[in-house]
């Protein structure tokens, strides 16, 4: 992920996994391209599930759909950890699965 002036300028992913995890990762990169980190902070699991059109995933498969969001959010936690610990904590809480 390449960020310039708080805006995602480029984002790619590498992965191997089930159809849901790969599709949702791909769609997530499209969702956040050219968006500000401030707006990405607000992204939550319902946005992802709605976007991939799978609203009734069970507790096991929801992990597949949200894996990429979790990775994205955790990298943001790391990014904010030193400069804005409050936001980091907020993002961490917001990325809980259940």
């Amino acid at each position, binding site marked *: 992920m390449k960020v310039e002036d708080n805006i995602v300028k480029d984002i790619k992913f590498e992965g*191997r*996994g*089930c*159809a*849901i995890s790969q599709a949702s990762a791909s769609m997530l990169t499209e969702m956040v391209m050219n968006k500000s980190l401030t707006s990405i902070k607000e992204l939550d699991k319902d946005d992802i599930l709605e976007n991939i059109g799978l609203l009734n995933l069970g507790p*096991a*498969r929801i992990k*597949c759909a949200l894996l990429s969001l979790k990775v994205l959010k955790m990298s943001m936690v790391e990014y904010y950890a030193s400069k804005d610990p409050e936001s980091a904590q907020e993002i961490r809480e917001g990325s809980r699965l259940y």
Partner: protein
Amino acid sequence: MLQSTTIDVEKIREDFPILQRRLKGGHKLIYLDNAATTQKPRAVIDSISNYYMNYNSNIHRAVHQLAEEATFAYEEVRRRVAKLINAKSADEIIFTRNATESINLVAKCWARQHLTKMNRVLITEIEHHSNIVPWQLVTGEVGASLDYLNIGEEGRIDIEDFSQKVNDPDLKLVSISQMSNVLGTILPVKKMTKLAHEKNVPMMIDAAQSVPHMKVDVQDLNCDFMAFSAHKMLGPTGVGILYAKREILEEMPPFIGGGDMIKEVHKQTTSFNDLPYKFEAGTPNIADVIGFGAAIDYLNKLGFENIREHEMQITEYALERMNELQGITIYGPKVTKERGAVISFNLGDIHPHDLATILNDFGIAMRSGHHCAQVLMERLEVSATSRVSFYVYNSKDEVNILIDALQSARRLFGL
């Protein structure tokens, strides 16, 4: 109905309330995840509610009638477990929470006492995480090493390689599973125990996948420790068993401290209770131990030889039908005599989680993932497999539905 020759599956199915339920879409439940946990017959469920409804009380201490009945029922199950695996004495049977806790008990109370920096513990590449992580923890704590026996094709071990590896003065313990939870491979544990003992190395057997499915005799195997759990053999969750030889248990320090494991407690010192109570601190899982007793009775009535025969027949049939599918990779032994009723496979490049989701739409409960055996997954060079595992209530008709579902998955993915 394609009948198994040894047990009456249709009749058995009537004993399992859960098999009567319908899933989403009106599907019958086809439960093929028995290596993870098995379903419970009415007799087990009833024995648990009977305890709570009629004689619920704490055991061992109180002198009233309820306590007497509960204590008798609980201790009676210990005797039945001893008989099940042919232990010399019921004192050699320790109730734990699960097989994992049983292995951890040995790691903490035996290995921690006997290992030094110089020593090694030997396990295999097919182990479940429960027979890997406790050894990593204890060897890490004392600075000892953890060695692996490599497995060959189909999950077999090389007995020559094993006899070389046990010929090591620094080796202190071997811990291996009798049957792989992924490949179904049955390991020659009796022979391995003999070889280990020739070098004075004690042997622990993870029997979580074997005791439910075949006759296991600890005196015949001559192993020093054995772990298994109730819930994989029609019993409730929350009950594990540790078997160990009396002389070994006697010299082991207690696991956790508290009530029931003591003889006398003073301000600074405690003398510990006799076996097996030394290892059972606090109120145990009385109800579920009693439920496990009903499960053992149920399995004994069917007969373990009949169960094994039934499982071999259904596994052979399943292997034969699955091999008809183009693009399928089946892991583990091809010969049913050398394997349990567990089949791991991959279908083309369909991810196992996707396959399991498709099969779920047919009412089939199948496992997908790494099956708590990531070391084995690395060895097989796959990230995951699909796994079906059978038990006493599974029929060849269900295998046919599985094959239809797999065919339809192939079509869906354009294979």
